[in-house]
């Protein structure tokens, strides 16, 4: 069987996106460093972008690709806000892991 003739279809990309999204989800749940959790959220958003692009191509509709630009903007804004919060926590204490932040419980 010649590997060169296997054409990737839309579902390949959708499965890849779902796997990436799953990795991101698991990452947010098991990792304890806010920065890493944050990177996992970015991974989830980019998995969504991949599905948007793949679906857009298979529907031959441009709207899915424009949606990606909006998502990119939102992700950038989230980075700004998230890092701002993390920096302001770091100023109070030298290390920040999610387990240290445990004043609130009940």
């Amino acid at each position, binding site marked *: 069987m010649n590997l060169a003739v296997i054409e990737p279809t839309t579902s390949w990309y959708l499965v890849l996106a779902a796997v990436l999204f799953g990795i991101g989800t698991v990452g947010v749940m098991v990792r304890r460093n806010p920065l890493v959790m944050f990177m996992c*959220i970015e991974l989830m958003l980019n998995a969504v972008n991949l599905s948007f692009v793949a679906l857009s191509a298979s529907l031959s509709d441009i709207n899915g690709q424009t*949606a990606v630009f909006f998502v990119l903007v939102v992700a950038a*804004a989230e980075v700004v806000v*998230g890092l701002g*919060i993390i920096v302001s926590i770091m100023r109070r204490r030298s290390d920040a892991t999610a387990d240290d932040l445990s004043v609130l419980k*009940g």
Partner: protein
Amino acid sequence: MNALFAENLVGPSISWLGISPLLVLLGGVCVLLLLGSIAPRWPKGSYCVFTVVVSLATAVAAMLQWHDVTKNGPKMLIADAVALDHFALLATITIAVSIALVSLITDDYLRREDYDGPEVYALYLTAAIGGVVMASSNDLIVLFLGLETLSLSLYLLAASHRKRAESQEAGLKYFVLGGFSSAFFLYGIALTYGSTGSTNLSKIASALSGDSPFSQIDAMLLVGIGLMLVGLAFKVSAVPFHVWTPDVYEGAPSPVTAFMASAGKIASFAALLRVLVVAFPTRIDDWRPAIWVLAVLTLLAGSILAVVQTNVKRMLAFSSISHAGFLLVGVEAAGHVGDKDALAAVLTYLLLYAVLVIGSFAVVTVVAGKGDSQTTLDDFRGLGKRRPAMALALTVFLLAQAGMPATSGFIAKFGVIKAAAEVQSYSIAIIAMLAAVIAAFLYLRIMVSVWLADSTDDTKLAIPTGAGIAITLAAIFTIVVGVYPGWLLDATRMVSHLATIAVQAVDPASQTPAG
């Protein structure tokens, strides 16, 4: 090539008057930030007065549009992406009123905690922009942008008290979990887009109706709806997606908590209704059971978990979860075919609850004292002796939240339960009434502490002007609406349906610009 591109690029026509409430808010933010940085020291209280003026102007602009919609009917703006109907405008007015009341509480709070400045007010206004966009969106991407504008402002507001470790912790927790849920919501949008070919709510509805190629049962669509529900259920803090709520409500500065519980909730419920009712009317049998389960879990868990709390802010957080359960009862009723009252009932509930929760948190803000830390049940002991008038107002708010007749809370709860009963959802209506009884215990515990226990601290509490005005207005509103609800119900009854447009199934090859 460039010229060709520019010729083909036709922007949508924009009805500027239709989006005037948004423009007023946006202008207010720009002026506040610009003047705030040019002139660093404003006279005492002027940030607050400015924000109140902007929010009242927003409400007036929305009311003018309300009259226009009453006369000419609802319409779609900006290439069908934004809906202008009574539903959106009532949500806008409610959000505007919430910012006005919350700003009054915030004024003295910021000076007490020594971080007065325009930032918090500017974030209130940007959050309101996001909320208004969510409530009036007719496109999933627009809705997502509104949701993020609201959420990003709320994360910052939650973390805004830089000297309090709890506030920072609340900000980070809210941020991580909020970003997590936004990603789910967005994945839901992507899959819905993939299975219907559009992100426009009206076009999704027509793609799913009878004769279109997309209308058959589709696993991708079901997963998409499910993921969007997860994202929105997180935002409205429905059980089991509520775990962030008590922590964030406790840690965030008290006025900010009031803002989250009022404006944040209004916007999220409005968005939930828009998505479910406009886009998926043909898939009612798929999403209504999910809402039913969420509503029952939220009602029961919100009421029962509140009983063991000892911090008043946490108690009010669980009470807000139980209110979300009542609102979900209304959402469930809105899913039934031919239902007329549920939309109005949900929005009325949101309006009345917003005033109640802001009033309650205004009292909490005053009692909490410097450092925003005295919020345990013990700190409320003997409030009836220290400050009888304020304790009376708090009692009114708590009784109203418990659904006592002759207060606005009764009108709110009656509205959603009646809407549920009218569409034969008797089981959920009965569960809601049981949950109201359990939740009453929580409010009684606070009242017992306020009136019957002796105070450990006899210093006279100073009530700042702004908070005093907010508490008084909220208490008067609660009683007046409770006794004479007719005028409000007549106004909200106009919210009988959500604007949508008839779209014929379009062939992608011959697509023409809509509008």
